């Protein structure tokens, strides 16, 4: 299968690609029209056959999630997750800025298939410009009669879609916290089960999907689930947006088949490291995914394949570090993030994340004592799996993997009573390069 099939990025960078006129000129909303002529259950079957898996982080099969809605409870809601806050992740904002109608079409098809009449797009507060593009596109769709009282101007089906802006809280990307936030409360994750498909927004059955997940739906309806599945491999279909950042020559968004090779992505597409130095480490799927050493990156990014390699492709955010970077410094910063963002509901997470941050900083500053690296591991092992939501695991996995894979670095800090990198802990290639998203609407 060709590596060059473009589903999500096909229209990026085109003049006025975000407008309804431009989307229509490229055949937009034909998939919605087709969907309206299908029995709703047949749409769900196509999505199942497509092997579309959630692009928000967990990689859960989308079609299967949709079948979890209880048969007779109404109303049902759809929440679109545009919170995009996992460090290293920066893809959904480009879908929204460059092709908002593709997302709206995907939402409309999903709602028709699932008998949902009210959908919210929860977008992080730090994206005011993207929120405005969405509002504009929704207004266009409303004015054109695509959404509103009669779906696509004819179906006996009403649909309203609204934007709901967050206000700065990573935890609100977690699905149950997102719903709490949408209800006007602080973002405290809920205990699961019950899962949102059964008890969700305002206690009603709710489907929650990532922006990129839903943006694939029009293509699937137009071309059939089998065609989408054929772009991928095994139980994962289609293409994905990989966002590469850090020490690479050409950072940016790359649309590739789901099973694309990580090393190829970094070395060929991104041109390798900017400094020309060897790759020391790669975080393959957002900052919570376990880190890989430079000699471990010859792996498929497909959900199950990369899981077998001990990590995950999570949100598709790839962070590359060359050999000039202090790995203890990086872990300190990652640990600080999770300590900052813990909502504070569960003791292991609330207490454990700042401890891990403090211990990382202590080691980094040269004040560690022998045994501290193991202590760090021990802390991490007592958080992941013992909390209400997966932030506990997200905080633990980097610690466990960094300590295991870069133990020598930690021990050197302890033995030398200093950071061997000193002032240059963040490495040598501290310049800002031209990203390949340069020409797109951002």
């Amino acid at each position, binding site marked *: 299968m060709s590596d060059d099939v473009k589903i999500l990025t096909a229209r990026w960078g085109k003049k006025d690609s975000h407008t309804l006129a431009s989307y229509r000129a490229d055949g937009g909303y034909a998939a919605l029209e087709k969907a309206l002529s299908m029995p709703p259950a047949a749409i769900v079957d196509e999505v199942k056959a497509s092997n579309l898996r959630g692009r928000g982080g967990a990689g859960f099969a989308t079609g299967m999630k949709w079948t979890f809605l209880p048969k007779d409870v109404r109303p049902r809601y759809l929440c679109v997750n545009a919170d*995009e*806050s*996992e*460090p*290293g*992740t*920066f893809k959904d904002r480009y879908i929204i800025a460059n092709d908002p109608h593709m997302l709206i079409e995907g939402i409309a098809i999903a709602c028709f298939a699932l008998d949902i009449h*009210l959908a919210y797009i929860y977008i*992080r*507060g*730090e*994206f*005011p*410009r993207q929120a405005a593009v969405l509002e504009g596109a929704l207004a266009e769709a409303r004015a054109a009669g695509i959404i509103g009282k009669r779906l696509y101007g004819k179906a006996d089906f009403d649909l309203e879609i*609204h934007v*709901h*802006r*967050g*206000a*700065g*809280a*990573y935890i609100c990307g977690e699905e149950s916290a997102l719903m709490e*936030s*949408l*209800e*006007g*409360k*602080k*973002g405290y994750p809920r205990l699961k089960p019950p899962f949102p498909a059964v008890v969700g927004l*305002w206690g009603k059955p709710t489907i929650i999907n990532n922006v990129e997940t839903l943006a694939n739906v029009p293509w699937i309806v137009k071309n059939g689930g089998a065609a989408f599945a054929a772009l991928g491999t095994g139980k994962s279909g289609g293409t994905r947006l990989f*966002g*590469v*950042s*850090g*020490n690479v020559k050409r*950072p*940016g968004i790359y649309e590739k088949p789901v099973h694309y090779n990580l090393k190829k992505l970094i070395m060929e597409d991104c041109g390798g490291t900017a400094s020309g130095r060897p790759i020391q480490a790669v*975080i393959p799927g957002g*900052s919570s995914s376990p880190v890989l050493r430079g000699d471990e990156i010859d792996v498929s990014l497909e959900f199950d394949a990369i899981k077998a390699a001990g990590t995950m492709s999570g949100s598709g*955010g790839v*962070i590359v*570090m060359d050999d000039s*970077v202090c790995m203890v410094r*990086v872990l300190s*910063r*990652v640990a600080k*993030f999770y300590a*900052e*963002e813990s909502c504070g509901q569960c003791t292991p997470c609330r207490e454990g994340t700042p401890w891990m941050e403090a211990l990382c900083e202590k080691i980094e500053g040269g004040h560690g004592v022998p045994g501290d690296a193991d202590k760090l591991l021990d802390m991490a092992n007592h958080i992941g799996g013992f909390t209400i939501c997966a932030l506990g695991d997200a905080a633990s996995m980097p610690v466990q993997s960094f300590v295991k894979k870069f133990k020598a670095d930690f021990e050197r800090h302890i033995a030398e009573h200093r950071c061997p990198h000193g002032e240059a802990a*963040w*490495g040598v*290639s*501290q*310049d*800002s390069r*031209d*990203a*390949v*998203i340069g020409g797109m609407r*951002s």
Partner: protein
Amino acid sequence: MPGDWKDLPKDLVARFDTLLAPVLQRYPPDRKEAAMLPALRLGQELFGYASPAVQGLCADRLGTSAARAEEVATFYVMFHTHPNGRHLVEVCTNVSCCLAGAERMVRDLRKRLGLGEGGTTADGRITLREVECLGSCGTAPAILLDEKEMIERVTPEKLAKLVEGLP
């Protein structure tokens, strides 16, 4: 009593109500409380910051308790329960931005602005904050200005010019 929303300027309260009305349309009629985030954002824009009085106003209009409004106002980093400087410069210092030089940039900026640990310049012109990932890692380093404008591929020179140009 201090912090009572009834002491807020009447004309601004009227404006708040006018702007809040269409926002309320987005939620089911019996779920007004869902508008707490947009209401606090609106109040913050109109009255300067999410003071106890603003929290009280939001609670009153959404039919909920002031305690609930306060809980929300203090949970999210984009709500400010105390006034900031005239401009808010938020620099991302998460991993991808630091790999592109963000930490050093913040250190230099602190020096340039004469900021110690505190966040606001003596003349009240600028509040500087280090923030978590802004979702601009591919175009790092990134800055959010006044919670409105994302500035990407920031260089020390670009940052110095930006900061000097702020009124």
